[in-house]
């Protein structure tokens, strides 16, 4: 294990961003997102969450697939792909780190999504352990350890130091590039912090959410449960929950008329939008109830059924704090986790 004093942390960021782009939580116009590091950036490692999750780096909200340019009677087609740049993603929390496993199941399954795969290959993940979870956190429910996140390198922060430990080959290679600014350290401080954080985790109000009902056997009972009606009744049909979610992975492919050509791009879609999965025959989910239900059935029943029991929620709590009317997955788990009329 290595360490660096926090007052010298800019040396670490300078070293990490020397050869490749370094993304980390940076505050701009009052909000924190993963932005490229630059000198004098307002780095906010103290923040529990960025507004959007880190999935943007592998599966961007919009990405150009191809450009079509009109040249007289000819159409020139250029590939818009821009996925080969190596980068370091620093400061990913345990919940977001697990979300990459969820996304891998979708995008790395046959047929492999070559855009996503290339970014996964070229990205190194430095995850950051939590020490101050919030009331909206429930990653433990999905078997995630907030004190020991997945990632190529894991870092822990206390008041004076950042502790660094490589976990994979990629992580070892990255460590070599920054070794000059790190010093050796024992793991005492980290162990003490892990123990203290675990005590806090034990007090989280949502730590006991019960997922046992969300199985294939109960699928149709949950699907037909009449309580979806009242739960979805006041859903605004906005896309906030889906766009701040680290695991939502639905997308649309659209053409943008530039006036002198067409840009074909892929963008995040939201099952909360009423044209979600609309096709030539119309829309299979006409009501907000059906679309609302789809989101939670997907995360809690369909996805685990197709992916060896892995839920596609990581308990980050973003939808809990961002939904304009506070309808969220924790409420759904509590309601649907208990059979109707019980």
């Amino acid at each position, binding site marked *: 294990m290595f360490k660096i004093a926090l007052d010298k942390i800019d040396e670490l960021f300078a070293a990490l961003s020397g050869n490749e782009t370094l993304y980390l939580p940076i505050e701009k116009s009052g909000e924190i997102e993963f932005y490229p590091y630059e000198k004098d950036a307002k780095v906010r490692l103290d923040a529990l969450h960025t507004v959007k999750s880190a999935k943007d780096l592998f599966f961007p909200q*919009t990405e150009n697939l191809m450009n079509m340019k009109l040249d007289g009677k000819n159409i020139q087609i250029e590939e818009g792909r821009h996925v080969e740049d190596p980068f370091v993603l620093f400061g990913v929390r345990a919940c977001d780190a697990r979300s990459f496993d969820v996304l891998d199941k979708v995008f790395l399954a046959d047929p492999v999504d070559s855009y996503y795969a290339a970014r996964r290959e070229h990205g190194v993940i430095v995850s950051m352990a939590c020490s101050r979870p919030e009331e909206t956190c429930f990653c433990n429910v999905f078997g995630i350890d907030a004190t020991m996140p997945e990632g190529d390198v894991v870092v822990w922060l206390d008041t004076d130091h950042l502790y660094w430990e490589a976990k994979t080959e990629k992580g070892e290679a990255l460590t070599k590039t920054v070794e000059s600014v790190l010093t050796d350290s024992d793991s005492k401080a980290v162990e003490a912090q892990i123990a203290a954080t675990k005590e806090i985790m034990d007090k989280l109000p949502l730590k006991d959410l019960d997922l046992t009902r969300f199985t294939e056997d109960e699928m149709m009972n949950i699907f037909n449960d009449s309580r979806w009606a009242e739960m979805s009744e006041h859903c605004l049909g906005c896309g906030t929950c889906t766009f701040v979610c680290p695991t939502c992975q639905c997308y649309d492919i659209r053409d943008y008329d530039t006036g002198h050509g067409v840009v074909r791009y892929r963008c995040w879609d939201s099952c909360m939008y009423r*044209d979600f999965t609309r096709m030539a025959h119309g829309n299979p989910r006409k009501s907000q109830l059906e679309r609302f239900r789809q989101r939670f059935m997907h995360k809690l029943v369909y996805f685990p059924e197709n992916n060896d029991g892995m839920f596609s929620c990581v308990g980050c709590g973003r939808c809990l704090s961002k939904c304009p009317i506070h309808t969220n997955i924790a409420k759904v788990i509590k309601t649907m986790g208990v059979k109707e009329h019980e």
Partner: protein
Amino acid sequence: MREINEMLKKKVSELLENGTADRIIGWQAGEFCYDVTPAVMRKDNLDELFYNGFCGANQSKYLIQESLEEGKVLALLKPCDTYSFNQLVKEHRVNREKVYALGIPCSGMLDVDKIKALGITGILSIEDNGEEIKVATMYGDKTCKRTEVLQERCKVCKGKEHKAYDELLIPDEDAPEVPNGEDRFELVNKLEAMTSQERFDFWRGELSKCIRCNACRNVCPACSCRTCVFDNDNSGVAAKSNADDFEENMFHIIRAFHVAGRCTDCGECSRVCPQHIPLHLLNRKFIKDIDEFYGEFQAGEDDTAKGPLTAYTEGDCEPSIVMEKGGEA
């Protein structure tokens, strides 16, 4: 607040019992003390109804759908909600006859994000004592001043008078004093005083955060089109995301133009924005301009008057006024 809560429960139960309305749009408690959800309730689940400092959501827009349904719905309107309600009635989007409006008092609504921004996290419970907010957290007990954590719109409160109601829970003159009003055009003035480059940088900084979740549009009582132009594939501008930074800007600017003269400044757009973009400032700029060009006008003040942008008078300013605005070249 507890007193008002009890009075409200009693009154609502009476109105449902005597058949004045058959259901109510109220508020339901959530997982925490602040995550209140709007909910339709009937006699059998009325015990879930409650009202506290986190019931800020303007429920007027729900009345568009509710007033299409069978029976009469009981709406709980805070003074500022009545402006949106009037506007929706004026635009024939809410059927007034299907709504029984109960005016409820408000002493200013709280913004949990502002509490969190003070570093108060891990919130377990919140006690609202009028002047001081006591917050029990996983990291110990904290306090903050109520005025520090009020919603933005409450800092420029329109007053305690209800502009529309069938009945008031308590007479307006007996209602609690509203928070001291700050100048609602203060920030607009500041933006106007900037150079065009500074102003551009400010808005690029804010609007580049937009994730195009459409929460601002979907919550906005003035955005009541059945199908928004941005959802209509045949419009040529339909989009689910911002394909480029031009679109980031234009979505919000077009929306602000569309609601100009009808926006009551209810502040819901800024309340729901996951990125805290101060969208209300776009609307306030229009409101300020309308005030200056056509004389002071407050949308939703009543449910009949034509707004300055939909009425013609001889004294109206010339369209060429735009040539004189917009700062230096």
